[in-house]
């Protein structure tokens, strides 16, 4: 009778000991490539921290962030859920052909934010028309991937409605509207990554050609692309990592020219818009300009004039084409630029101003009215 239960007891204690000691005695990781965030290391213990409960909270985070085989366990969970037929995991849909699509529902959208952004954009155009009537104004809303890969979505899967909101953007007065939505809907090429919410080079180039058509600019030639990496797995993949998901390819346009542009961030100047180090890390999309900055000015372009590009992360991969049409491009990221653009637009005369934002940001970003105000 005493033997009954020993095996169960020992196997249980073995598992607990494995995870417990394994977590304690493997070196702490400071950053998770997969999650794109810092991981909690063992915190300093202070009396006040303990009394307030802060130390304990950090230790809780430490225990789960540093758990041995954490990434493997996440992958196991994702695989089990996928195998059970679940097609939305971790906030993303996984459609046919392992096409990852951001799961943003109508019930997630706050239309007040969107309407505020619409008004802010229109007011911005009005004020620029008044203060610098010679500046050309353009609006290019970037649709989400469902415009192109919508049919891969699992049957019945819902995403927020794009069409009605694109129509509202089209109706904004004061600037030339660049229609990317209809072009993207018609095109056959792969316009969005399988594992990332951004557009591919083909997507960026197609949008760029629409811009050139509307703004009457010369189209830079397509055939200057070379392969950057064919092992790209983006941020949507990270939310639900499946080992059999497909890699994406990132192409780099005209490396020779791009390596010679001058990049100014604040007081620092450097050469080259491609940050090649990122091609060896997980976050390969950051090869374009090295990730997100509040304000970057790139000069030395082959065109004439200065472009102010009010943007989010999509614009980083369209920049190489635009540098063929302008002498310099100033990129303002609406998510990191914290003050009003007036300081820029008052002291710099721009040839063209282009607002190029993804529809997801247009419905979610609350800071746009502050920046455009």
């Amino acid at each position, binding site marked *: *009778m*005493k*033997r*009954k*239960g020993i*095996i*169960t*007891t020992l*196997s*249980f204690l073995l*598992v*607990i*000991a494995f*995870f*417990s000691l394994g*977590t304690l005695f493997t070196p702490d990781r400071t950053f998770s490539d*997969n*999650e*794109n*965030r*810092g991981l909690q290391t063992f915190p300093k213990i202070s009396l006040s921290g303990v*009394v307030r*409960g802060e130390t*304990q909270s950090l230790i*809780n*985070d*430490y*225990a*789960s*962030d540093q*758990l041995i085989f*954490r990434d493997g*366990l*996440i992958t*196991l*969970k994702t695989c*089990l859920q996928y195998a*059970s*037929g*679940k*097609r*939305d995991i*971790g906030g993303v849909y996984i459609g046919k052909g392992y096409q990852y699509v951001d799961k943003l*529902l109508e*019930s*997630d959208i706050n239309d007040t934010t969107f309407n505020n952004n619409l008004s802010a954009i229109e007011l911005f155009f009005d004020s620029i028309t008044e203060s610098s009537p010679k500046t050309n104004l353009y609006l290019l809303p970037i649709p989400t991937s469902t415009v192109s890969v919508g049919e891969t979505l*699992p*049957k*019945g*899967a*819902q995403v927020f409605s794009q069409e009605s909101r694109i129509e509202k953007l089209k109706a904004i007065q004061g600037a030339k509207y660049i229609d990317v939505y209809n072009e993207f809907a018609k095109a056959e090429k792969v316009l969005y990554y399988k594992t990332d*919410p951004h557009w591919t080079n083909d997507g960026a180039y197609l949008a760029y050609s629409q811009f050139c058509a509307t703004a009457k600019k010369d189209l830079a030639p397509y055939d200057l692309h070379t392969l950057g990496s064919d092992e790209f797995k983006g*941020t949507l993949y*990270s*939310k639900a990592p499946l080992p059999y998901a497909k890699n994406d390819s990132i192409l780099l346009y005209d490396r020779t020219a791009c390596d010679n542009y001058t990049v100014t961030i604040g007081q620092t100047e450097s050469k080259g818009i491609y940050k090649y180090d990122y091609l060896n890390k997980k976050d390969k999309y*950051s090869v374009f300009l090295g*990730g*997100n900055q509040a304000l970057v000015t790139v000069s030395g372009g082959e065109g004439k004039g200065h472009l102010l590009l009010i943007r989010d*992360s999509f614009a980083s991969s369209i920049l190489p084409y635009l540098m063929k049409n302008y002498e310099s491009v100033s990129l303002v990221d609406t998510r*990191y630029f914290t003050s009003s653009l007036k300081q820029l637009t008052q002291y710099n005369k721009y040839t063209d101003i282009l607002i190029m934002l993804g529809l997801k940001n247009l419905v979610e970003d609350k800071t746009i009215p502050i920046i455009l105000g």
Partner: protein
Amino acid sequence: MVFSSSIFMFGFLAAVLTLYFLMPKKWRNLLLLIFSLFFFYAWDMPLYSFIMIFSTVFDYFNGLAIGYYRNKGNKKATKAVLIISVVGNLAILCFYKYTNLFITGINSIANTGIPLLDLALPIGISFYTFQTMSYTIDVYLDNCSVQKNIINFGTYVTMFPQLIAGPIVRYVDVERELNSRKETFKDFGYGVKRLVYGLAKKVILANSAGAIWDEISQMQNPPVLTAWIGAIAFSFQIFFDFSGYSDMAIGMGRMFGFKFLENFNLPYISKSITEFWRRWHISLGTWFKEYVYIPLGGNRKGLKRQILNLLIVWALTGFWHGASWNYLLWGLYFGLILILEKLFLLKWLQKIPTVFSHIYSIFLIIIGWVIFANENFANLFSYLKNLFCSPAGFSDGYTLYLLISNIVLWGLAVVFSTALPKKISEIITKKLHICEWVKALGLVILLIISIAFMVGESYNPFLYFRF
């Protein structure tokens, strides 16, 4: 500390188990007490542990006092001490839990602007005050002896397995084990099984169902069928969450040699609401029956008084669940149904085929959960309306998606709400003579899968680089 977390499973539990079994028997209660109080309870709310220490010491002395006065033959004094204990415990509970509701009520009736208290609710206060009260009441009723050892009493109150989310363990049920118990491999193995099952129920079934409910509850006007899917998802979430926690508590108690009573017994197979409340949160029902319903007279003072007693008990039961009026409504909702069943419904139900009794019960249970899940009355009425008639129609493409993409979850949830798994397990054990190695392997696999789901809760990919 939350059971389904890395720090609990691989920090606290690992440490407690190791130290407990290395320690000589006479120190084991003290170890449990210290760990439960300082590492488990005080971990999240350091300063609030003083309330629990106070409640423990308070009722320890109340118990001693009742024993002392009873020996002296002073019945009036024993009653007075009992009243002091009950009033004291309820005062602590009501102060922390219900004051803000009370203030809000006064503000809206009398148009005053009394500011709300900025107090967090001490974790587990609804459970441990009821536990210590059960002790003093049972000492008064002479159902158990006075616990003279304050360490043993402290262990009873603070023991981490049942401290945060029950079961509400009556002192009489663990009196013997507190003073002397035997830890065996057989019990420990059984405890492992309950712990792993409980963890799996919580992180795999409850959390997945909860995510579906969260999504549907955010929709303005879901179609009728989607609203039902949401209500059913919540019903599964609350069952697997709560019963999973109880399983873990019972399992861990057993590891240390304590045999806690079952708290859930397949509540969703009930054929009536009367039966449901004998299968759901059994320890709470027992507590209210023993310490409120029976002292009020139960059914021994005529029908009218019985109905009143039931209404009082169910109003209190509902209200115990949360400081919000919907919980009171929920309690009275069931109280009313129970009264009707006692009066004539039960007889009717026995005359119709059992499938209708099941449908009747499930329907009322689900509606009950909708009341429970919506603290805001506007949301509640809107949701109830959508269950029967929605501006979005009966169903849409997404309804089908919710059904089909989660089919395995629905299947598992239904199966594990019935006696089927147990029956299959019995057949397998008896017919196939599965040896313990296989069962242990199965538990290990289930444990690792549960750990994967548990870690998944803390997985937080950040889209924008380093901000």
